[in-house]
């Protein structure tokens, strides 16, 4: 069975970019457009990895991350934050809330792919 990756971003451009980078890998791609939808999809689909933006409507990436960490079903799901917010305070907040990795936009395709492969234990 293919591993599932949940891509979360309110930017259709970022979602499209991530899909382009990851579409040929040995995994199934799911999407959500804000933090609240991300939590709902994570609980329903139990993805093996979540790539999530920080600044989003309804529920931010940080809030969603806290919600995911508070629930037993998603407590251990790796979450990589992918965001334009590269300030040290934001990076620190991300790790304090339990993210597994922190990538800044513009997205570097090689870095994103390497991070995903590392999290999922895939050898390229």
């Amino acid at each position, binding site marked *: 069975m293919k591993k599932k990756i949940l891509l979360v971003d309110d*930017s259709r*451009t970022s979602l*499209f*970019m991530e899909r*382009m*980078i990851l579409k040929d890998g040995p995994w199934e791609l799911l999407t959500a457009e804000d933090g609240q939808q991300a939590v709902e999809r994570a609980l329903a689909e139990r993805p093996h990895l979540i790539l999530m933006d920080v600044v989003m409507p309804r529920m931010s990436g940080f809030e969603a991350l806290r919600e995911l960490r508070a629930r037993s079903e998603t407590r251990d799901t790796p979450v990589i934050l992918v965001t334009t917010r590269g300030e040290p305070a934001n990076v620190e907040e991300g790790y304090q809330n339990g993210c597994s990795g922190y990538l800044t*936009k*513009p997205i570097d395709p090689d870095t994103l792919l390497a991070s995903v492969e590392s999290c999922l234990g895939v050898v390229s």
Partner: protein
Amino acid sequence: MSPVETQADALKARVVSLERQLAQARRRIAELTPAHVVAQRLHASLDRKQVILALEEIVAGLVGCEQLAVFELVGAPEVLTLVAAVGVPGESNDSTYPGAARIAHGVASGETWLAPAGAADSGDEPPLSACIPLKVDGRVTGALALYRMLDHRGALEPADLPLLEMLSTHAGIALAASRPTAVEAAR
């Protein structure tokens, strides 16, 4: 050297060659992916708001800048007119806009301008990082002004020009194609 050793050496050389080709292919894919995203997103709609949103997302997510302004040449005689602003003042007076002289020069010359490395930030107004003329059929139809880059992104450099040149054409065409909806909305 035994035949088996000779064959093993040949296979090792083949592996090295294939790894090199794979690395080249990955670099090429990394270069082409943003180009594909730009084209797909900018031409996905004829609605002016959707085109501007796509442009905003591309500039933030692929270029690394969250302050931009879009100008179009409007009327006869043509006047450079602000049509969208994100993260910078949305005033319509293009002659007093931050970097107005440089933007006007970019429209006149048709050439992309990048701020020189280490350009000082006066702090009074958003520093112009780049001015990209928008083109349709090689004719300048407006300009895309990029202001302060994201801190972690750093300054734009010549290696970024291919992506910016692509924006010049695709954004120019997408904005021209969406002009009827902009005119309709303004009525």
